């Protein structure tokens, strides 16, 4: 039993328990993330030496050629990967705690589908094969819209987790039909762009994306740590949670909204990435057995790691083609999803 460090506020107003093991793992993950970022910055169709990368990052004025590539092309892209991956990881964790089912994630529940349909609709309306400035707000609106519908349909005196999942699946299927219709009637170029968006890609990420995503991620992460305690309680079952004084319905709504905020904004900037919200929390759980606060931090770090590496694989392995990161995440995530089911089956 590892020893925990406990910090208490004055008059026991608040207390925080910190496990050294958790801290070590988090620091290790953070270090790994930084190294991955640096690796990703050095690789590309024109590999850059690591010392040069560091020099440019630290503000050297020389090396004009790589400066542009590093600071305007690679760096925003890698940062978006860290932020979006982290947001999706945390969103997945919250949803899994909310639904009390380890198979929940933003894609299963229909949040991603809502954003997708709104985005493809916008692409079809604006008729342009390139993205427009409307795409991000449309996707976020879609994600929230679906969630409102989801809650409205699930609400029967309360939010039952099983019903939430089933209705989410139904909504996702219906929305997918609308998306297919839009793809069929769009011109080729729009359809292909939409399809790549539906897979999830970080191509052409800009500083504007980083600036848009960063505040949402940071706020979301902070709030997620705050609601983590409630997730711990809910994991014990409805009766115990209620007995411990938890306001179940209110908490569930807040958690759902938080998950939608994080997942919706991540998806709005990167396209419909799936499976990160599933993979990251599970990997976090395998690393350290701890409460949801620690799990939140680890999910964020792991989500960022997954996406940074998936993006790197996409742009480096098939040059000069730039494959969507979503492909690589799915390539690993989807079989993992199936494997999870298999393991759950044996547990009975």
């Amino acid at each position, binding site marked *: 039993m590892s020893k925990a460090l406990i910090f208490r506020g004055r008059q026991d107003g608040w207390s925080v328990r910190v496990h050294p093991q958790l801290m070590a793992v988090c620091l290790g993950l953070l270090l790994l993330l930084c190294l991955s970022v640096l690796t990703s910055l050095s690789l590309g*169709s024109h590999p850059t030496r690591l010392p040069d990368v560091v020099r440019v990052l630290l503000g050297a004025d020389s090396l004009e*050629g790589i400066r*542009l590539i590093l600071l305007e092309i690679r760096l925003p892209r890698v940062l978006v990967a860290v932020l979006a991956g982290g947001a999706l990881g945390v969103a997945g964790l919250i949803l899994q705690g909310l639904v009390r089912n380890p198979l929940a994630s933003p894609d299963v529940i229909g949040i991603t589908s809502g954003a997708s349909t709104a985005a493809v609709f916008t692409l079809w309306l604006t008729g342009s094969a390139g993205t427009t400035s409307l795409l991000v707000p449309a996707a976020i609106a879609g994600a929230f819209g679906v969630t409102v519908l989801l809650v409205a349909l699930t609400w029967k005196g309360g939010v039952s987790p099983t019903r939430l999942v089933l209705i989410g699946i139904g909504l996702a299927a219906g929305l997918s039909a609308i998306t297919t219709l839009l793809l069929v009637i769009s011109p080729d170029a729009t359809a292909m762009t939409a399809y790549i968006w539906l897979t999830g890609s970080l191509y052409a990420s*800009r500083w504007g994306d980083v600036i848009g995503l960063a505040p949402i991620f940071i706020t979301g992460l902070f709030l997620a740590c705050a609601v983590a305690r409630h997730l711990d309680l809910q994991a014990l079952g409805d009766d115990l949670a209620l007995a411990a004084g938890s306001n179940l319905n209110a908490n569930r709504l807040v958690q759902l909204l938080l998950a939608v905020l994080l997942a919706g904004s991540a998806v709005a900037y990167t396209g419909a990435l799936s499976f990160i919200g599933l993979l990251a929390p599970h990997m976090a759980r395998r690393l350290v057995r701890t409460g949801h606060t620690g799990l939140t931090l680890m999910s964020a770090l792991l989500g960022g790691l997954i996406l940074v590496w998936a993006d790197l694989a996409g742009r480096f392995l098939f040059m000069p083609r730039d494959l969507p990161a979503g492909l690589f995440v799915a390539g690993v995530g989807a079989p993992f999803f199936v494997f999870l089911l298999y393991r759950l089956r044996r547990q009975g």
Partner: protein
Amino acid sequence: MLNPFAFLSGKRLALPVFLLILVGAVSASEAPENTVTVKHALGKARISASPTRVVSLYQGATDTAVALGIEPVGAVESWTEKPFYRYIRPALTDVRVLGLETQPDLESIAWLDPDLIVAARNRHQAIYPLLRQIAPTVVIDDVYDFKTLLTLMAKATGKEQVGQCLLRHWQARTRDFRSRIQRKLGDAWPQEVAILSFRADHARIYYGGFARTVLDELGFSAPSAHRKDDWGIKLTSQESIPAMDAEAIFLFMQEDPAVKRTFREWTDHPLWQNLEAVGAGEVYPVNPVLWNMGAGILAANLMLDEVYQHYGLANTLPTADLAC
């Protein structure tokens, strides 16, 4: 000894000073020197005179660059006949391939250190801010308007004379075609034509696009059902075959067994046999690269060659590269 100050007084000073101010004003509004300001779909680009390193981010721009006598340092790959369409491949010997038109490799573009980038609004609007930081970028609004593209690129690359010559040559050719076809078809002119394409599991009618624009300019008309704002439609049911009807049909397709199969199924259908164009024997298969994908002045000229050929008209004017 003349007093210099006395020499430079009054009226004698007026003209030089005026000229100085004029020159100063002009150069101030055009600073730095030797640049061209080009207005395009997404703003203005300030390009140094006679840029040599040109990057093309869509097919029409590659075509036009070659027509203007410039070999791009980088170009996106073609959709078929990769990496570049056969009709311009000879001119593109030392060109770096930049990946797909929809997702060009930004790092490679930056590394090439170009003087000018030519892009299309409907594909590259999202990356325009990035492109602008790499090099002056000119963005085309309508990818099928090859003449505006020619004018724009000619101005941007300082080859206005060549551009104007190409345009005059094109106009001469269209005039020649019109008079010949008028003589040949007489009262049957203008002829109503439909533009069709067959894919692996559906067929298409084009209401707009490159081929339609060129044919309209040549004087062909279109069935009233085809005069719509859309690019065209995809048809999955052979019952819609009558919608394709016109006095003559130009159709194109890829060399693919699935496409060929679909083509056979549709053309074996009795409804197809009933079409006016089929009955009159006026169905012409044409080259999809020239009619739909090249989208530049060279492709337009080669497409016109095919039209001359199908109507059996004498094609006597010199080719573009000889004329300009």
